């Protein structure tokens, strides 16, 4: 097919990508949206197979292509079927890295195949950008993957001394190389140098970021993988790459921003800063003088007489895999005529929307899931607030204590309910590593147990009594 026809199909694919993303604006249409995206991809791939240039490559080319598609599909299907939903962030990180790698490799193939006198500055700039962003995405994502998966290899990876200085030096060198590559039209050699330097840069930038900050980093790398694809699109002058890449770039940036806002931290702070108890934060012994423990029977009694119950899940619910037990408890309460709602903090868990995925998996209707601001308006009319494995997201210090390490982070006001029951295994801190005054509040009862077991015990006790 001639280029114009192929381009027309690419245009259709681009429109389908956009419509697919629009589908994701509502749970009801989200499945269709994702399918539309897949169809768009299929369309783009199919029409490329008929492109005149690919045709010119002959049988060997086609053999390679099909081999690649088959191998890649097999690995992709296998990964996506075997993965547990809780390991989602790792998997996204891994895929991200592969996408970034593919982008700079394609740019590399272009560089290798194109005589330098047939190129132009416009293209050489794009090539340098693709090499830089793609390679950073690859190693950055691999480090993020390893950290999240708690891979043993990571323990043997050296933590960098003076990370800020190292980062600055490696970053500077990489940018310089990229600049030289962009302005030298015979750039074959320079391109691969940029790639090597950028691989190092990706490693340096991510290795010193705290494991718990990885979700933000992953969203950012997600954005990068899109930008790398777009840069490759500029190299090949292929609009569907540019459009799809830009969409992903925007999406990643927006998610990064959402997460940073919900944690009240700046992106620079996540990327370069450290987080932890500052001098000003009271230590745990001081805070936890007056903690009241409880057990399943007492909680069941409280729930039995409640008219309105709000459940606030956190990372602990994911760890305990308690979502199905929570569903059963909620259904039992609803059947008794008690009003039950869920309060979902935007950064509860370890990914944006983490809790929503888990609760959806357990078939909890999304009408019951309320966002932070909405649930906070009715917290004072709530008889029991049941906090399951959440910690930082219900820490009143975020709201009240301007000296706290999480000062200014918006929280769910679990402490404003008449009674607050917190289920967690111990008094150990959450991600931010600071004590939580909620646990020692007058109206709080602590139920120390694994999240799933605790909920099952409460339910059993409710059914008995």
């Amino acid at each position, binding site marked *: 097919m001639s280029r114009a026809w192929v381009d027309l199909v690419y245009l259709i694919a681009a429109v389908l990508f956009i419509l697919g993303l629009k589908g994701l604006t509502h749970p009801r249409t*989200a499945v269709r949206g994702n399918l539309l995206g897949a169809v768009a991809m299929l369309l*783009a791939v199919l029409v490329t197979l008929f492109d005149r240039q*690919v045709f010119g490559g002959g049988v060997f080319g086609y053999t390679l292509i099909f081999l690649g598609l088959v191998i890649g599909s097999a690995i992709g299907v296998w990964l996506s079927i075997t993965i547990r939903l809780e390991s989602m962030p790792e998997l*996204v990180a891994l895929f991200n890295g592969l*996408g970034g790698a593919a982008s700079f490799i394609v740019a590399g193939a272009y560089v290798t195949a194109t005589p330098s006198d047939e190129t132009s500055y416009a293209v050489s700039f794009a090539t340098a950008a693709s090499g830089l962003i793609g390679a950073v995405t690859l190693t950055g994502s691999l480090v993020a993957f390893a950290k999240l998966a708690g891979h043993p290899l990571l323990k043997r990876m050296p933590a960098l001394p003076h990370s800020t200085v190292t980062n600055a030096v490696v970053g500077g060198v990489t940018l310089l190389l990229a600049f030289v590559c962009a302005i030298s039209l015979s750039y074959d050699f320079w391109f691969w140098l940029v790639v090597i330097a950028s691989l190092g840069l990706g490693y340096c930038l991510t290795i010193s970021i705290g494991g718990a900050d990885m979700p933000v980093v992953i969203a950012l790398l997600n954005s990068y993988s899109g930008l790398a694809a777009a840069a490759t699109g*500029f190299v090949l002058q292929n609009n569907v790459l540019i459009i799809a890449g830009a969409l992903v770039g925007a*999406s990643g940036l927006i998610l990064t921003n959402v997460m940073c806002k919900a944690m009240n931290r700046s992106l620079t702070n996540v990327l370069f800063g450290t987080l932890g108890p500052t001098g000003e934060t009271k230590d745990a012994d001081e805070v936890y003088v007056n903690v009241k423990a409880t057990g399943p029977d007492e909680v069941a009694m409280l729930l039995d007489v409640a008219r309105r119950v709000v459940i606030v899940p956190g990372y602990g619910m994911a760890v305990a895999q308690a979502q199905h037990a929570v569903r059963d408890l909620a259904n039992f309460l609803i059947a008794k005529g008690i009003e039950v709602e869920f309060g979902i903090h935007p950064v509860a868990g370890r990914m944006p929307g983490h809790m929503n995925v888990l609760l959806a998996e357990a078939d909890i209707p999304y009408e019951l*899931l309320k966002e932070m601001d909405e649930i906070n308006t009715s917290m004072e009319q709530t008889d029991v607030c049941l906090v399951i494995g959440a910690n930082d997201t219900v820490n009143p210090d975020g709201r009240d204590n301007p000296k706290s390490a999480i000062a200014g982070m918006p929280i769910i006001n679990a402490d404003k309910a008449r009674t607050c029951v917190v289920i967690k295994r111990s008094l150990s801190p959450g991600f931010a590593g600071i004590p939580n005054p909620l646990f020692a509040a007058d109206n709080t009862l602590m139920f120390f147990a694994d999240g799933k077991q605790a909920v099952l015990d409460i339910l059993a006790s409710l059914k008995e009594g």
Partner: protein
Amino acid sequence: MFDSAFLLAQETAAASSLIAGLTIFALAIFVGVEVITKIPPTLHTPLMSGSNAISGITLVGAILAAGEYPGAAKLLGFLAIVLATVNVVGGFLVTHRMLEKFRAR
């Protein structure tokens, strides 16, 4: 003389297509920002993995490379096809698996 005129014309054409590309890029960024800010937090995890799958679009470039280029470049293309396909197929499937849970009701 002819050569330099030719190179100039080539550079001009490249610059024009660069600007057209930038125009498309800028518009797509606008579309992305407008559409994605409308996506509710509930769906942020599927959005992350779904948009990740879309970034595998570079597969199109990989196919062109493996088909068109000679020698080593062809093999690079092949490698890129494998990586990008994992990204695309895995990404869409995993997103689908997640979204199915949402549709259940």
